[in-house]
């Protein structure tokens, strides 16, 4: 047994290829970014050492602050929306839905496989107001709620919300499947016993199911967090960061700074900030895991 599991050749074969690839493509660029962050301009065009100037610039950059706020709001809303609604759907599969369980589960999961850009175009049309009302506005108009008809993605007050709705829509089916699996693992006896003790509806969930589901909830939050923190594809496809910069995330701002403004050094600083947010977020979520 020992010999088999200490087989040096096998270990090398198992670990080295992945390690090399990971180091070259993930780890090395991170270190490289640190080095880049000390330069101004862009490689090939006015590339000069500038010390910590880029970091100083960060504190006076209104656009950076705006992007940071947008990004944080987005993470908060989308993460809890995806996981929370996913959980609700899963509870429905388990407790209320009898007949069409499989087909509904299939349909609800389906948006996951849609290309984000396609979803963006679909929702742009749903939110449309000019020249014709899109799906949402024409429905509102049709049921007599004319006053609610508005340019959903054309005004700062609703654009980010509309984007969040889209991203929650895409992923909540995915989380519902994860939670459904976890619910199946909880034995019927536990649920029955709780019911006999008088736990129903919300109290059943609060005192019996939630504690049992905690590890899955945390895993899901980690998934969702790592997806939302990079906020790029969907915002680009639906609103292109607009109107103004109402839906412009840190990644989008970094992309602009590096590739349009030719300030690769400063772009690297923003990338490092995104990295730090990831570390902080993951640490916070991890804190909840430790209690057990």
């Amino acid at each position, binding site marked *: 047994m020992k010999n088999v599991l200490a087989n040096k050749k096998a270990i090398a074969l198992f670990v080295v290829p992945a390690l090399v690839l990971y180091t070259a493509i993930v780890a090395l660029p991170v270190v490289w970014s640190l080095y880049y962050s000390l330069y101004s301009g*862009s490689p090939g065009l006015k590339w000069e050492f500038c010390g910590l100037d880029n970091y100083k610039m960060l504190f006076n*950059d209104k656009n950076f602050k705006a992007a940071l706020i947008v990004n944080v709001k987005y993470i908060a809303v989308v993460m809890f929306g995806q996981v929370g609604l996913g959980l609700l759907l899963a509870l429905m599969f388990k407790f209320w839905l009898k007949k069409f369980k499989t087909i509904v589960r299939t349909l609800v999961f389906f948006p996951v496989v849609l290309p984000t850009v396609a979803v963006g175009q679909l929702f742009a049309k749903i*939110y449309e107001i000019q020249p014709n009302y899109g799906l949402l506005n024409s429905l509102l108009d049709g049921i007599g709620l004319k006053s609610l*008809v508005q340019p959903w993605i054309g005004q*700062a007050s609703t654009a980010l919300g509309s984007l969040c709705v889209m991203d929650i829509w895409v992923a909540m089916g995915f989380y519902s499947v994860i939670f459904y699996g976890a619910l199946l693992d909880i034995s019927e006896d536990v649920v029955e016993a709780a019911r006999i003790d008088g736990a129903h509806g919300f109290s059943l969930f609060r005192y019996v199911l939630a504690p049992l589901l905690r590890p899955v909830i945390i895993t899901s939050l980690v998934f969702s967090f790592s997806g939302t923190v990079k906020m790029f594809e969907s915002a680009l496809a639906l609103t292109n960061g*607009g109107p*103004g910069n109402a839906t412009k995330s840190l990644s989008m701002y970094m992309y*602009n700074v590096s590739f349009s403004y030719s300030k690769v050094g400063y772009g690297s600083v923003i990338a490092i900030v995104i990295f730090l947010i990831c570390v902080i977020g993951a640490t916070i979520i991890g804190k909840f895991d430790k209690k057990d």
Partner: protein
Amino acid sequence: MKKKLLATMLSASMIMTMAAGSVSLAAENTEDPQLEKTIKILSIWAEDNDNGVLIKSICDQYKEINPNFNYEYELVSADNLKQKVATLAASNDLPDIFVYEAGKPIVELIEADKIVDVGAELKTLGIEDNLNPSAVALLKNLSGTDTIYDLPLGHNVEGFWYNKALFEEAGVEVPNTWDEFEDVLKTLSDKGIQPLAAGGSDKWGVTRLINAYAVRTMGADALSKADQGEASYTDEGYVAAAQKIQDWATAGYFGEGVTTVDMNTAGTMLMSGDAAIFYNGSWFTSNLNNESENLAGADGIGFFNVPVVDETISPADEYSMNCGNILCFSKDKYDEASSYFLKYFVENIGNEAMEKQGSLKGYTYDVSDDSVSGYTKVVLDEIGKAQSAFTWWEATMNSETSTVAQENVQTLLNGDMTALEYMESIQDAHDMSAL
């Protein structure tokens, strides 16, 4: 000074265009050595769309002359063009020929010594006369150089296209002064007609409107002054121009959700009678000429230049003009084979564009323009009237400033930002980018 030069050039060009016939024939005396070369072209038009059609057909024709010639056609979205070129330039991998933007973006490439001095090259090849002198003057003006580093892919005027039926319905006439223009907008709006369609989601469709008023009140050099630091973007005149457009938006002249409307949709709205006036360039004729698209018919849409505020500051025969997106040649990749292709391109694109699309690209042509459509004729006439030119809002801005100017114009339209805040954000970006 520059303005005057341009004016002379423009009137000269009218004569040149008529007498162009002999020129392009005379240049065809050297035999093509049929050098082997594969040229990479980076474009923003699909091969069956707009200028893409012309570039492709010129390439295909040249292949018949030089069988050893080949080309690879790559497409990038217009939004993404600057980023793509910037990354390619940074890695010394610019394609042989690429579409780019005139104004500040090309200046950066010239300064980094990345692109070919096309003017000198044309002189060596003896084909400089194939370019329309006024187009050349425009390009020189935009890059601030004595020679050109790019080829034009258009020779456009911009202004207001209007739906004649809607004007009649509202009982309004084409305005000449800005005050009349405001009256027209008001009357249209009062009659329940949406006065303006604008591509707020494409952003530049709106900044052009601010530009129009700014130039008419402050002169053609207003924007370059602010760029040079002789004036500040936050000065009264600029703020007033931004305010003007915001007032229109507040008054509902653009309809609902203008920031979600793109230029194509806005154009469709004009043609289908959903809106009365639409600011766009003469390239819009390609849509107007399309019968299935243009519901207003062959004579349903008219054109007028930006109405005048003060004749002494910016006269009525001053037009917003440009050469569209331009073609650049990468310096690293340019060789003798490229020069023969360049020669063929310059000699033939003018005719090709006139024959195929009835459009002006900034080159001389010797095919008859009698058969051109009504809309193309309108544009030819307007270009004929132009005595001087001004450029667009972002022409003098670097990419950082121009991004801010475009993005925040949506915020301005929505009223989430005041006109002063808008101009301040541009000034800020201008200052930031200098760091």
